[in-house]
């Protein structure tokens, strides 16, 4: 666990250094040295906060592993595929909103959906939350532990949440055949239901 944290820290340093090299167009010794000093400074400044969250997350993951046997390492190639897929979803989503906005009758039917997922850790849930905001028809309103509250603009059944296709894509970042990811779905369609 300690070794994992060290690897994490070195990775952050490398990312910051690459970021610096991309920003600064000057590749002489003096500027690179300033970059190393800056990256060390920033890494050192964020070290304690990151350690706090790292161990908290680790405990959560151990619990998840004990409970559900869900692997917690991201599969990098799948992640690349996921980014391309997500871009396509953003295009579809924007076209859908454009259709809703530009057609004179405005075919919208808003509803709130509450559902639970069995994703392994916080970062997976955050990936899912932001993806829900970017994909067609839905935005994340609240995320509390396992429970998502989602606002859907059009008909919910078309949005890929109820059948679990979007959460399934996120779960597939971690596991090849995730099975059922979504459960306990509630749909609110009017003020009386709330």
């Amino acid at each position, binding site marked *: 666990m300690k070794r994992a944290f060290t690897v994490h820290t070195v990775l952050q340093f490398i990312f910051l250094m690459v970021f610096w090299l991309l*920003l*600064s*167009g*000057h590749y002489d010794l003096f500027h690179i040295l300033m970059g190393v000093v*800056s990256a060390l400074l920033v890494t050192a400044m*964020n070290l304690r906060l990151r350690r706090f969250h790292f161990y908290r997350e680790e405990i959560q993951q151990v619990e998840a592993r004990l409970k559900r046997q869900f692997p917690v390492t991201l599969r990098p190639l799948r992640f690349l595929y996921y980014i391309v897929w997500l871009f396509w979803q953003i295009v579809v989503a924007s076209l859908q909103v454009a259709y809703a906005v530009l057609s004179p009758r405005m075919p919208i039917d808003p509803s709130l959906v509450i559902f639970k997922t069995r994703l392994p850790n916080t970062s997976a849930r955050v990936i899912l939350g932001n993806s829900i905001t970017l994909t067609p028809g839905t935005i994340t309103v609240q995320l509390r532990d396992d429970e998502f509250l989602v606002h859907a603009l059009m008909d919910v059944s078309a949005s890929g949440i109820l059948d679990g296709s979007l959460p399934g894509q996120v779960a597939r970042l971690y596991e090849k055949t995730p099975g059922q990811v979504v459960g306990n779905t509630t749909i609110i369609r009017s003020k009386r239901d709330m």
Partner: protein
Amino acid sequence: MKTHRSNPIVSLVSRMVSPFIMMFALYVIFHGHYSPGGGFQGGTLIAAAIILVRLSEGSDTAQLQFSRSWGTPLGSLGVLIYFGTGLAAVFMGGRFLDYAALHLAHHASMSRSYGILLVEIGVGLAVTAILVSIYDNLLEGEADA
């Protein structure tokens, strides 16, 4: 009583983005003579990155990143660097903030460049520390906003 209710999405993304904003701010400070920016702008961006974590994590957890007690000493250190550079120039026979008199390098122009860099670092440090401590002092009475 107001308590900090954490929103995991905002919290994680803020923690992820904050070091990169700091790195960008340091770039702004160190490349002040090629691109827009300098000590003040960079210092403001660092302070913004620190305040972002304070906002999303709650002030108590964010103390791990930049402690409340560092504000005054670091601010004083920044002013000291700025003033010390100026005074050193006076003692070495120039005028106040006359970087060429510092003899940091062989050429007067290089010496001026390094002198300006020192002053920028001082200004950046002072601005960062003072802005963060202003934020902390504004929250003095709150439980944990």
